């Protein structure tokens, strides 16, 4: 049980780190994320709070909410972690080549980070559910 909880917290910590890589400086038209020229810069988080989307979709959010303390920890970290800070600190002011390189590298990291994020969240949910089941079985056995 302790090892399961420890692993879950480890996953949660990783999830907290992933959003910083996941945060992107722009939004691309669907299917054209590698074409940096057609990427629209996302305005500052303060100005466009209504446009920013949570890193956790509603279905996953619901699953995490019902996954006990570990799920809540994952949800908190995924929703309010470094991602929000990243939005404030990404005003582009570099010369063309540097920004172009930065944008494309962030785009690549973003797509990999996105996949990793969902895998980690899924693992966390499964582990949290397993922990709950184990706890209930032990409680009923005791």
């Amino acid at each position, binding site marked *: 049980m302790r090892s399961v909880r420890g692993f879950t917290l480890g996953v949660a910590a990783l999830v907290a780190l992933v959003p910083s890589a996941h945060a992107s400086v722009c939004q691309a038209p*669907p299917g054209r994320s*590698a074409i940096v020229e057609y990427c629209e810069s996302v305005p500052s988080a303060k100005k466009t709070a209504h446009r920013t989307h949570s890193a956790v979709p509603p279905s996953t959010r619901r699953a995490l909410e019902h996954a006990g303390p570990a799920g809540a920890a994952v949800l908190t970290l995924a929703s309010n972690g470094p991602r929000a800070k990243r939005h404030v600190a990404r005003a582009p002011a*570099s010369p063309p080549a540097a*920004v172009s390189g930065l944008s494309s590298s962030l785009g690549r990291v973003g797509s990999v980070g996105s996949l990793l994020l969902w895998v980690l969240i899924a693992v966390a949910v499964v582990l949290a559910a397993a922990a709950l089941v184990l706890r209930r079985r032990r409680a009923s056995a005791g």
Partner: protein
Amino acid sequence: VTVRRTVLTVLAAAVAALAFARPAAALAPLHVGYADDLFLGADADAWLSRAHSDRATVVRVIMNWAFVAPTRPADPTNPADPAYNWTTWDQFVVRAHQRGLTPLMVVIGAPPWAEGPHRDPSAATGSWRPDAQAYGAFATAAARRYSGSFGGLPRVRYWQAWNEPNLAYAITPQWNGATPESPEIYRALVNAFYAGVKAAVPSDLVVAGATAPYGCPGVCGAIQPMTFWRALLSKPTYFDIWDHHPYGLAGGPASHALNANDITVPDMGKLGKLIAAAVRRGTARPAHRKQAWVGEISWDSSPPDPRGVPLAKQARFLEGALYLLWRQHVSTVAWFQIGDSPPNPSYAATSQGGTYFVDGRAKPSDKAFRFPFTAYRKRAGVSAAWGMAPKAGTVLVQRRTRGRWRTIARTRAGRSRVFLRSVRVRAGAVLRARAAGRTSLTWRVGLDG
């Protein structure tokens, strides 16, 4: 007195009849077409035939200046100068003409001999401070060749000066410190191009801008289109038609750009106002009303691009974009592209926005292109049923009720094929149009606005 009264009454009745008859006839036309260099390739005949059967009118292709003129011509305004190689475009113009399609030539890409001094080695090929005088001379040669009176070649009437000049792949440098520089470079290019085309054929029309939709709010490799146009039109600039490429994000054609200086579909009117103001001010020349065109727009579809929008949504976005652009007085829209690009090097780096898959199979968006139909809500309970019928004639607007289609309105499409009719329907109603024995795709009211 009686005779006078009778005449006045008859006149009043005639005026009233004209006023009532006007709406169907007065609807502005929308010319639709495709922007795709498949029209220049090995299968050009097949793709041009598909465009024709789709009822496209405009076919937009790139004419690469560096390809036509790899070495400096001795007589640059002479289309027969031996330095020029026009073969690809000669074939295209003939094939387009055979099918009754209207070509739009986009002249871009400076040859090495026409780029400016002190070239930045990182600048994109053909983008570095192109020589405006040489560009103007090339425009004269091209317009003369396709004037309709040279070597039996058909005429090309529409000429576009460069493409997406607010992006660094097209023009460098974009900035000089914190000051936009590409508008200055582009103004010299478009003015020389305009003079060059008009010197050859005064009735040819020059398209300017063709700006990309997004830029950075600060200094980077892309200038936001509103910023670009403001800087461009701060001094006299010559063109007949303005063009912009309002590629949208996942939200679809009704979604505004996130930034005030970026332009997506519903923001086109804002750019139109800026240009109209420049005409009044005397910096957008000559002083006549400028046509608004969209030379490129599309959304990638899934399949084949795993990150694209579903096929049905792509079709709906196409129809929505056409209506919303028409409503903002855009007169020509070229969809980018007719056929998907192969995923080389990746789907993310290429366009799968075609109305056909790479193997020539039609997508649902092809049906949407042939017979677009939308019903955006005007106000509670009333929608504007808009579309482009296959041909002029009666159009039925139908609603699906308990699995059966019932006609709820009848209207008429004029020669332009465009029709518009208010219909009383609630959100969620499923509509379609029928005309000339064909049916449009269905449209669910209120899904996108």
